[in-house]
């Protein structure tokens, strides 16, 4: 292969990669444009169009977004805490204990990767009504806290930890939970970070189940709040809806831009099994 054709090949690839990248940011860039400009510039692109934050202010006043944000924050914290607790214990059991029924139970855990709680919404809604939890934040969280994915991911990590460390700690008199706390959890920190980022972004963005199980301002997460806000046909300007859209995705988007490397690596780590 000659040098010049290689160079040609390379620049062609670069151009194509950039073209696709620009195409990919276009919808988002368009939303950003309209959100930061007065409504008159929604479809007029002038370099020196005046910038404004008014659309954000209007959106903030038009719906109780502060409450929605608080609800989402409580929700993702609750889910993450529950998942870390339950999945750690279960993963530890699968990784380091011999007991009858282990393989069958593990298969049942993996089954949840296929049959997610969203799919079983009809029955789960009945359960929540039975527990008198409809329209509460725990009702949104409960179906997700025993995560098959989390158990699987942590089990894989725990199994890579040398048994000698475990035995050494036991000889020093540590209990089962002591070993878990002092040996396994600290060594699995990167996995926890990765799983945490994946879980938070997933549940921040979750929509269908919260839509079903909530029906008041006090419990709705931002995704449901946003859908209600933008579904009103009362002629809310596009620029305001776009501002609301950006606002709800804002915290994750900013976190992503700041910690891009960690985000990408976390998703990569969570994907390699």
């Amino acid at each position: 292969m000659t040098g010049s054709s290689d160079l040609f090949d390379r620049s062609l690839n670069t151009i194509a990669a950039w073209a696709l990248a620009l195409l990919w940011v276009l919808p988002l860039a368009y939303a950003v444009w309209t959100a930061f400009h007065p409504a008159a510039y929604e479809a007029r692109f002038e370099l020196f169009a005046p910038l404004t934050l008014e659309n954000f202010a209007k959106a903030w006043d038009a719906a109780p977004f502060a409450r929605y944000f608080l609800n989402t924050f409580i929700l993702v914290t609750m889910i993450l805490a529950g998942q870390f607790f339950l999945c750690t214990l279960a993963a530890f059991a699968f990784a380091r204990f011999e007991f009858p029924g282990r393989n069958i139970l593990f298969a049942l855990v993996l089954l949840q990767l296929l049959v997610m709680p969203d799919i079983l919404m009809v029955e789960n809604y009945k359960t929540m009504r039975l527990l008198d939890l409809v329209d509460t934040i725990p009702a949104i969280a409960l179906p997700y806290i025993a995560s098959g994915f989390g158990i699987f991911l942590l089990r894989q990590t725990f199994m890579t930890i040398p048994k000698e460390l475990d035995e050494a700690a036991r000889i020093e008199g540590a209990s089962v939970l002591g070993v878990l706390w002092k040996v396994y959890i600290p060594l699995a920190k990167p996995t926890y970070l990765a799983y945490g980022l994946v879980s938070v972004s997933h549940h921040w963005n979750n929509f269908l189940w919260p839509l079903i199980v909530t029906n008041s301002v006090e419990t709705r997460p931002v995704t449901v709040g946003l859908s209600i806000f933008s579904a009103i046909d009362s002629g809310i300007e596009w620029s305001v809806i776009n501002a609301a859209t950006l606002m709800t995705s804002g915290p994750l988007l900013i976190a992503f831009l700041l910690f891009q490397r960690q985000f990408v690596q976390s998703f990569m780590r969570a994907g390699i099994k």
Partner: protein
Amino acid sequence: MRDLKLKRDWIHGWLLLLPALVFLFAFTHIPAVTTLINSFFSTPRGRRSAKFIGLDNYDRMINDPVFWKVLWNNLWFALGTIPASVALAIVMALWVNDKLAGRSFVRMAYFTPTVLPLIAVANIWLFFYTPGFGLFDQITGFLFGWPASNYLGNPETALNAIIVVTVWKEAGFFMIFYLAALQAIPVSLKEAAQIEGAGRWTIFWRITFPLLMPTTLFVCVNAVINSFRLVDHIFILTDGGPDNASALLLFYIYEVAFRFWETAYGATLTVALLALLSLLAIGQFFFFDRKVHYK
């Protein structure tokens, strides 16, 4: 002595597992079973409780044109999203893995849709698709002189418009997995092939692509599950319309169970979805010849 340790292991194992299993059974396994049971009963209404009606719900499902319509739509949705997003993901990963000018911007551009909520994505695209006024029409009008068109309001194009949004959202996510896999391929393999005089095209098809096979399997499994699970954007973009042209199976289940409150029929449709998912899981297992092992 050994027996005693074994017994203790059993108890510890079970105790550690117990809390997770309680939740797992309560919200996944038991509901799956009760879904099946309820599909043989009528929907309880007011004081009238559910009564056993045998296969009536299934009979209704088989004769329900909307059911076949959404099933068909789901098939198109899967065929439209999976190959396109997987192929794009591979191409993106190859580019981003290369030494490319402005690589970090390009990677960010591909991956950003992944962190956005699907609801927000739908809002952004709804605006993008707005007839006449949206950027999509403005560009096609400017470049090709096309007239304004209502992509979401037309039964011919509504599902395709949704497929485009889904591919946009998913490709960057799958790219990450390929990126991880590409970085695990030893450079020496590629160098050896280059010395042998193999071009980029040959290297890709003979070395890189086969080595990416386990990743492709993993991504495909995810993509198939997603094609039954991703319905959030439909609520905003078309609400299943026009005339169910863009409704998918899970969306229809939602409609039946939570808009018409026919929970028994909803359960029957859920059984169909579960059966479909299991069939696909079994099919994929054999089709890919167990190329990946989880240990």
